[in-house]
């Protein structure tokens, strides 16, 4: 019923490689059998990747996307973390702000584009603003919830040892909430990556999102479309893995189940 005896270590590589091979084969043969003229085969995507790598545009696009994520996410963190901590620490504040947040949150960042363009014009800034918006909510929510979930035992212990409120917040509550805050940041980073790509498809003319839509619009280069998609996926995964490394640092590791 359950998985059988513990899989061997080599299986960790075997199964995914097998699956990938099978999928590539299916992809390759469906392209041949359906005799499609437009949809790329794995080989043409590979060639497309090489082509992109040689055109300097790819590196510029990657840098642009990453830069927007860095700035937007960074701003969201700088503003969102203190704000979220405050919301978690002062329940009355949370009561006041929460309804507004609940109404704003379901509005896709992309829907803010017209407003963003009015404020920031066209170019980098609206895209960065969208990233900021997209990352802000998960960060605020994670910080608020992280703080409010810290067991009251810890706060009481802090008071028992004579710490003042700000000290308790800094030396007890914040470290206790840190694992959850980090998870929220990692999720927000993932969202930032999704938003930047989407935003670039509509509001800017550089970046990986733009590359995807431009490859189609100027010449139906679906091989480049798929190649760009794969690059987006890989970079997004890399960002996620990098962040998980931070979670491994000893002083936070206690908060994560091994």
């Amino acid at each position, binding site marked *: 019923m359950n998985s059988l005896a513990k899989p061997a270590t080599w299986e960790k590589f075997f199964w*995914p490689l097998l699956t990938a091979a099978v999928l590539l084969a299916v992809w390759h043969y469906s392209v041949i059998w359906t005799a499609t003229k437009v949809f790329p085969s794995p080989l043409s995507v590979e060639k497309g990747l090489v082509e992109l790598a040689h055109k300097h545009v790819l590196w510029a696009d990657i840098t642009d996307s990453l830069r927007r994520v860095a700035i937007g996410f960074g701003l969201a963190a700088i503003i969102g973390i203190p704000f979220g901590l405050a919301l978690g620490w002062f329940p009355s504040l949370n009561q006041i702000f929460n309804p507004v947040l609940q*109404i704003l949150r379901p*509005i896709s960042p992309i829907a803010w584009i017209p407003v963003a363009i*009015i404020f920031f014009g066209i170019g980098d800034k609206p895209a960065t603003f969208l990233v900021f918006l997209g990352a802000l909510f998960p960060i605020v929510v994670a910080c608020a919830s992280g703080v409010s979930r810290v067991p009251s035992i810890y706060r009481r212990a802090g008071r028992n040892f004579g710490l003042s409120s700000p000290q308790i917040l800094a030396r007890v509550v914040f470290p206790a909430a840190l694992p959850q805050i980090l998870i929220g940041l990692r999720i927000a980073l993932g969202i930032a990556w*999704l938003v930047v790509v989407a935003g670039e498809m509509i509001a800017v003319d550089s970046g990986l999102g733009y590359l995807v*839509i431009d490859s189609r619009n100027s010449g139906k280069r679906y091989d480049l479309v798929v190649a760009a998609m794969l690059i987006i996926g890989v970079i997004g995964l890399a*960002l996620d893995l990098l962040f998980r490394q931070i979670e491994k640092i000893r002083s936070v590791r206690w908060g994560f189940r091994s």
Partner: protein
Amino acid sequence: MRLRPVAFILVLLVIWQTAISSHPGQLLPGPWQTLRGIGDLLQHGLLLKYVVASLFRVTWGFLLAAVIAIPLGLTIGWYRRAEMAFNPLVQIFRPISPLAWIPIAILWFGVGDLSAIFLIFIGCFFSLLLTAMSAVHNIPDVYINVGRNFGLSTPAFIYRVLYPAVAPQLIVGLRITLGIAWLVVVAAEMIAVNSGLGFLIVDARNAGNRYDLVVAGMVVIGIIGLLLDLAMRSLEQVKSFRWGFPEN
């Protein structure tokens, strides 16, 4: 006490109105104008039409994704080798924004409902897949051992132990994914479709800078998204699921 958030919202509205009024010739609308914009849309029947269109797409994309991703995710989460096989692939596809699939969507489905549903499906699929996988991992071993101890057949085990054990987590995952679906549909409609609330926003701006309609659309999007979330939360209250929340 209850009035505080309401008071705060009122304060925000006043600030908003003042900011707009003090800059005449501004494109952005104030709250009053926005309200009139909503009324405008209602009158012309556009609001209802677009809301229905967006909800229709969300429903189909969401349900399709749920029906496929949940059993698949439960299976992959249960069998170690299946997870080894599929996880790397999932991890690479997950960070690709559903919107990046637009060229492929248009290629396969043209411009219209099917494309939008496909995009929503993609967005919901990965979220639900991962939720299901994680839910299976989180089943306490005790429950599994008891199930084995009582000699349940595999179908009986799935129906009587696995499913009830994962249900609470799946419900939370469904709620979050519905939120994702709502975000995707709006964005998709701004880029790849010709109806719906997202389209309304782009269209209102393009055809005459009707920013009052733009912001009206945003407000409606926010409210409906919130209502969807609240509706899902009420599901969590159903007694037979409630066990999963206070204790777990």
